[in-house]
């Protein structure tokens, strides 16, 4: 029996054909993965199925019945549920409150919390998804929060579960747990659609894999009949070297040195405790850690968004008393933010306007405060080519670019600015392998040019592959310093979870 079938789905956005007559059919009780680059049309297709977009043309069948899904409400009615990349949970509510939100059991007009509690307990037992129903969501690790999301949609009777890049925010251990969960759901007869661009995972878990490229279906492969390299070729359309190139450079003078840095988090508690490290010209220092262990605080202090409670930051061995984004940029810092939409780009701006942000006051982009549009256009055309931003049109608004291309635009912007120090905060977040490979090459290039690079990442393979030195952040402290040749993913994983400490070799 087919759980879901789409026929000739076409979605036309202004200037972009996001889905070009896509045909897919998903069997009941199957784990079906959809892979593809950023902007390949995976999310668009899922949003069509979930009723967030209406297709330009095409038909959707759910359990062999032709349906017309106009809103997510329709989709839920058809027993389709979606676990979004960003969780839709209310941190101050308990697990139970979150799960029943929108469909609460009640006694008359009073919310029946006890009944809700028992319902959630039963549900979690039935599917073997362990949660503490009375715990506040804010206190839960990301992996468990995701479990709450899953329970939420299961409670609504979902038979088809769509996961939009579920492993992007998880640690390796949490990913393992998620896969166990998925297998359990499969045993229970649920159908799972799994969107990802992590090919290793997809190969491990999926029964069938559909590959999308530039809005078109490239092919469907069965479990066990493909390899990572072959799949990668299908996704990107050419051979990809997944290995990260190593570059030996001479480490030179110290560019940034941080001493005893203590920073408060947005919530007002100490998020970073007495952290000290140096970054030298020509080296990449990687910071590993599970999200929320002080990375945001470190970045905010370095870029000058929050004032440290204690400690100093020195640039070129000159201590900076007050750091503002304005003066640290002048000193020569480039910054690739983790949140592209919020910190990296002005979404309604065109590529040509975005790419000069931060260097717009410099010659040749402007003279005496008047912008030189001809120079800006020339520069943008050149950079879009160099950084392979698609579409090449310099007038595309950032809002209409896909995530990967937004990231490339940011790279183009930051790397063309004069700088000595690059702060890269999760530079490959949400990128596909093609774009990732690109980012890695650019980072290595930067290193070869003698830049000091601080790389903050959740991806261990990235940290291990790129860094010359690795620092591990746990609970706001550096719990270990090591080099890639002296450690491995398991050890780093344990350190990230605070289960193992390693003495710092240097300070």
């Amino acid at each position, binding site marked *: 029996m087919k759980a879901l079938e789409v026929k000739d789905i076409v979605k036309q956005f*202004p200037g972009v054909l996001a889905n070009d007559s896509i045909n897919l059919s998903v069997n009941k009780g199957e784990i079906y993965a959809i892979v593809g680059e950023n902007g390949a049309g995976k999310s668009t297709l899922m949003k069509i199925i979930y009723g967030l977009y209406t297709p*330009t043309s095409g038909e959707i069948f759910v359990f062999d019945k032709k349906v017309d899904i106009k809103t997510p409400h329709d989709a839920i009615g058809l027993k389709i549920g979606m676990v979004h990349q960003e969780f839709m949970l209310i941190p101050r509510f308990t697990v139970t409150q979150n799960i029943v939100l929108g469909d609460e059991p009640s006694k008359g007009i009073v919310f029946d919390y006890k009944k809700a509690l028992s319902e959630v307990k039963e549900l979690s037992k039935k599917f073997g998804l362990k949660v503490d129903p009375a715990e506040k969501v804010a206190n839960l690790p990301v992996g468990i929060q995701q479990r709450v999301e899953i329970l939420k949609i299961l409670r609504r009777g979902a038979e088809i579960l769509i996961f939009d890049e579920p492993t992007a925010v998880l640690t390796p251990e949490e990913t393992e747990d998620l896969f166990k969960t998925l297998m359990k759901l499969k045993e229970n007869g649920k159908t799972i659609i799994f969107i990802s661009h992590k090919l290793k995972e997809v190969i491990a878990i999926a029964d069938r894999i559909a590959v999308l490229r530039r809005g078109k279906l490239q092919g469907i492969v069965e479990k066990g009949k493909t390899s990572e390299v072959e799949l990668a070729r299908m996704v990107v359309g050419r051979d990809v070297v997944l290995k990260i190139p190593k570059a030996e450079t001479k480490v030179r003078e110290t560019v940034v040195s941080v001493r005893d840095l203590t920073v408060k988090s947005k919530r007002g508690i100490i998020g970073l405790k007495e952290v000290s490290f140096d970054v030298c010209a020509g080296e990449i220092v990687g910071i590993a850690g599970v999200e929320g262990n002080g990375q945001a605080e470190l970045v905010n202090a370095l870029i000058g968004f929050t004032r440290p409670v204690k400690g100093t930051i020195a640039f070129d061995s000159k201590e900076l008393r007050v750091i503002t984004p304005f003066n640290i940029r002048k000193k020569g810092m480039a910054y690739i933010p983790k949140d592209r939409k*919020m910190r990296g780009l*002005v979404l*309604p701006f065109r590529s040509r306007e975005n790419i000069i*942000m931060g260097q717009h006051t410099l010659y040749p982009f402007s003279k005496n405060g008047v*912008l030189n549009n001809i120079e800006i256009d020339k520069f943008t055309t050149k950079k879009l080519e160099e950084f392979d931003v698609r579409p090449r049109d310099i007038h595309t608004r950032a809002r209409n670019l896909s995530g990967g291309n937004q990231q490339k635009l940011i790279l183009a912007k930051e790397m063309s600015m004069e700088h000595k120090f690059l702060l890269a905060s999760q530079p490959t977040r949400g990128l596909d392998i093609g774009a990732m490979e690109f980012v890695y090459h650019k980072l290595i290039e930067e290193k070869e040019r003698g830049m000091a690079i601080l790389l903050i990442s959740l991806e261990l393979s990235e940290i291990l592959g790129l860094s010359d030195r690795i620092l591990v952040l746990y609970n706001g402290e550096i719990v270990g310093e090591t080099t890639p040749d002296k450690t491995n993913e398991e050890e780093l994983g344990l350190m990230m979870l605070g289960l193992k400490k390693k003495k710092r070799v240097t300070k």
Partner: protein
Amino acid sequence: MKDVFKRFFFGKREKYWWMNVLVPLVSILLAFIVGAIFIKITGRSPVVAYKLLFGASGLFPGPYWKSHFSEMLLSSSMYIATGLGFAIAAKGGLFNIGAEGHFIVGGITAAYLGYAKPFAGLPKFIHLPLIIVGVILAGGIWGAIAGYLKAKRGIHEVITTIMLNWIALYLIEAWLVIGPMKAAVETGISGTPYISLSAKLPKILPPTRLNISIIIILAVTFLIWYLFYKTTFGYEIRTMGHTLIFGMEAPKAAGINVERKTIQTMFIAGAVAALGGAFMVLGVLFQYPPIFEGGYGFDGIAVALIGQNEPLGVVLAGILIGALRTGATTVQLAHIPKTFPSIIEGFAVGFIALQMLIRYWLMKLVRGRKKSVQTEMGGGAK
């Protein structure tokens, strides 16, 4: 040449760019329709009312057209000034309610510099520019106070601008006009003394009282447009306005000094709105009266909203509101109160607030039409 011109003024247009023009027009049209329904409900004739309203508005030729036309432009120039005051701040993500305060601060400054001794004897070509510079500084500083409080102390500009409006009002009406700036008793004038001849704005269309204020404000509008779209300053203001919902993090992270820009933006907004007050004193009243019939500042918000915060749009909206106000008195002949145009103005703003909905409907209309045309012609969707 034509290409350069196009490039300079328009840049690249996207598909459906005309939607940005059509939506305000449709909103205004809807406002007039609703206005007509109101008149009809009260048992009067909308046709007669609109005929009278537009006949005396100065927009269309007719009896006494010259005088209506000049009156319209006189008030329009003030609406455009306050409208720009709001629009400039809005482009930078600031909600400036202070145009009323800037307006009267500009007025009182113009009055003082117009009659006070050391200046009053100067030749016109020195005196008038001097007054304008004084007005710009005074209005600008009044605006910059709110900008400073927002940037350095984090106090929301809506609160501070409203408070500054009242401070300005009471400083002027409860102190200056009846105190230090009061005209001598023997002259028999209430309010400040009349400004000297050299301070009056030159007339351009005698015998009407139309003066160069409209030319000044059109020049200012062009400068503001240039500032917005051709300079780094305007670029920075726009980055701030577009990222308001994200706390302006992107421009901050890019090293734009958001705090300083906030103060500067509010300075310019205040200065331009203050020009409106100067036009009032230098071109219409020739003194600062004891009680000032205000409202230009608040109408400026409506003008800016209808004009979509774009300089050209503000000019057109300012002319529309000016025309409505000019024709307002005549609608009384149709037994309709002269405040009726305010109702239309209110509805126009209301429909502008619903612009997403109107845009959506219009888009549907356009797309639907296109589809049927395509199928008629046998063309595929591709």
